[in-house]
């Protein structure tokens, strides 16, 4: 895959990126606060309802959609076309970029307004359009700030979870060329005015898709700010980029999936705007785009069917697994180095980017399983992570030191005699290692001792008491 922006995944390790994030005091305060808030909201939302039963229904719907993906996609395409939508197929990120660039070019598009979309992040769309001389404006407040800063979103649904109000103030002040007050309402107002201009000028609106409804030919787009509605109402052309896995068989399936998506994501009963888009403006309607395009993005998705990882295609991108993840809580989304952070990112990145580039991320979790318990469609993330780790070891892309350590451990601990010998050796080595300066230099123990007292093997391990 070619990326037009620097690719942290190939130029740094998770440890390096995580360290950089751990050094940001605001992030350390803001991420736990925001994610705890979301988790508490989810609990409150479902306190009087049967979340377990609802997510079981959600799982079944997603499983049905993915099990017969091609048929549902064919149905979706047929229904979309019947609604006057032009449907395109993109095998990979490059194809998707080219398709969208072509549609924008044909539309004579000079200004594009965008609704927050992880799929467009995945294909790195904005730099490609910019290279064509098209002005691209992200209209979700968080994404707008991310764009002003040349940054990346760090959470699936809360893109600037990592930024302070002060940082946002600086970015927006720079954008408008005057000092703005340090006040969230005022800053929001300024962004609104800026973005309103963009909406009015835009020729093309680009969105992702939360769901593609096969039986009615409808793209479902969920937002709180109303920018989804704006981007799909005012510009002459609307393009929706949809990962092929987002298809659902029936409109009524949304009665299950919407409360799961918004409940798990933000704890809301329903977001402020749920847009159901079934084609361009029709006769008798006062507004709406003249053209609607749907680009169906594969980019490695279909290939996951029939593999142990098929269930990752059930994901509805709610961000709940990020909110409960104790690792994400500490390091935020950027540490993961690609588009998707947190547990879902630790699974998707190795799958989409390959073991060589992305394999490390399957290790970037303590395997606590909190993500499994919260996922609204019951994706077994914990098992998928274990599988990925196993694949990584089998593919031989694990660092040499790790492979040697695993072999040594296996050799020594497979027999009681060598096990006991290793314990005695460790005990002997632990004497000088009591000195932190020494401990820090030890190969594996040193990494432990950097922040923790090294446990000292007992003088009489339990097995010696059994003689």
């Amino acid at each position: 895959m070619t990326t037009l922006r620097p690719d942290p995944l190939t130029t740094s390790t998770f440890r390096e990126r995580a360290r950089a994030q751990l050094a940001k005091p605001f992030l350390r305060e803001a991420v736990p606060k925001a994610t705890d808030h979301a988790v508490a909201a989810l609990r409150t939302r479902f306190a009087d309802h049967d979340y377990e039963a609802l997510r079981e229904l959600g799982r079944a719907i997603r499983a049905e959609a993915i099990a017969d993906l091609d048929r549902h996609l064919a149905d979706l395409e047929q229904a979309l076309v019947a609604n006057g939508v032009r449907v395109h197929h993109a095998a990979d990120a490059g194809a998707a970029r080219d398709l969208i660039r072509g549609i924008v070019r044909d539309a004579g598009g000079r200004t594009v307004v965008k609704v927050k979309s992880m799929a467009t992040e995945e294909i790195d769309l904005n730099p490609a359009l910019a290279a064509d001389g098209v002005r691209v404006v992200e209209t979700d407040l968080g994404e707008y700030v991310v764009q002003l800063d040349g940054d990346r979103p760090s959470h699936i649904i809360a893109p600037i979870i990592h930024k302070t109000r002060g940082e946002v103030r600086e970015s927006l002040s720079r954008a408008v060329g005057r000092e703005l007050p340090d006040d969230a309402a005022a800053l929001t107002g300024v962004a609104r005015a800026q973005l309103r201009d963009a909406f009015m000028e835009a020729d093309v609106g680009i969105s992702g898709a939360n769901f593609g409804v096969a039986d009615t030919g409808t793209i479902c787009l969920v937002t709180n700010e109303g920018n989804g509605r704006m981007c799909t109402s005012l510009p002459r052309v609307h393009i929706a980029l949809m990962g092929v896995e987002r298809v659902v068989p029936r409109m009524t399936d949304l009665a299950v999936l919407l409360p799961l998506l918004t409940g798990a994501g933000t704890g809301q009963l329903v977001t402020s705007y749920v847009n159901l888009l079934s084609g361009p403006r029709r006769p008798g309607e006062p507004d709406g785009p003249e053209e609607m395009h749907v680009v169906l993005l594969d980019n490695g998705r279909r290939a996951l069917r029939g593999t142990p990882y098929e269930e990752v295609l059930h994901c509805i991108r709610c961000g709940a697994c990020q909110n409960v993840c104790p690792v994400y809580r500490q390091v935020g989304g950027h540490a993961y180095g690609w588009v998707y952070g947190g547990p879902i990112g630790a699974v998707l990145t190795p799958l989409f980017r390959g073991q060589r580039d992305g394999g490390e991320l399957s290790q970037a979790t303590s395997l606590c399983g909190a993500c499994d318990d919260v996922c609204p469609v019951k994706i077994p993330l914990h098992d998928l992570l274990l599988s990925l780790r196993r694949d990584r070891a089998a593919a031989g892309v694990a660092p040499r030191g790790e492979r040697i350590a695993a072999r040594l451990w296996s050799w020594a601990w497979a027999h009681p005699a060598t096990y006991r010998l290793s314990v005695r050796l460790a005990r002997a080595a632990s004497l000088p290692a009591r000195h932190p300066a020494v401990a820090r230099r030890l190969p594996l123990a040193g990494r432990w001792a950097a922040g923790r007292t090294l446990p000292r093997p007992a003088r009489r391990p339990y097995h010696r008491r059994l003689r």
Partner: protein
Amino acid sequence: MTAAPDPALLARIAPTELRPGEDPVTRFVREARLVQTAVEVTTRDRLAAAVTEALRAEGARRVAVAADLAPLRYEMAARLREAGIEAVRYEDVAPDRDAVRDLDATVTGCMAAVAATGSIVTGGAAGRGGALVAPVHVCVVERSRLFDGLLALLRALPDLGAASAIALQTGPSRTADIEKTLILGMHGPKAVHVVVVVDAPATPAP
């Protein structure tokens, strides 16, 4: 192969459905207020007054009224004039982006509403932008169009008439992107007033 969701099951487990025996209007009012929608339940004879009052309360001077409220538009004309409010037809201003920009408020009907979620459903003849582009949105909801829950609405969509785009709108536009501070009115309206029209004498909202 699973079937479409079972309404009885969903009503038991989903927060977006009405509980058995629950009064739809009461639930609608409660949920809408929870998400910062101003709600009033009124009778038809008081409708024009209620809408005018909502506009006056927001200080709106220039408002557009959508086509789905065509008769009401003329019933209200006198009152609006009296209140110093200039009313235009939304379909007249919709193509003119500058005119849209100058609107203080829009008044629309809606295709439907959902009791369990406090949502209104807009689109179709009222347009996509009608409920969106001005800082204030006043929406008239007919009691007969109030669906119990999300599933009932989605099942009924094909009968609501063809529309290229509909939106389930729940409360004003909002964002919490900056340090989780809730701000209303990000891109859409910062104030939403819903007037529910019941034919029987209204029970006063709690």
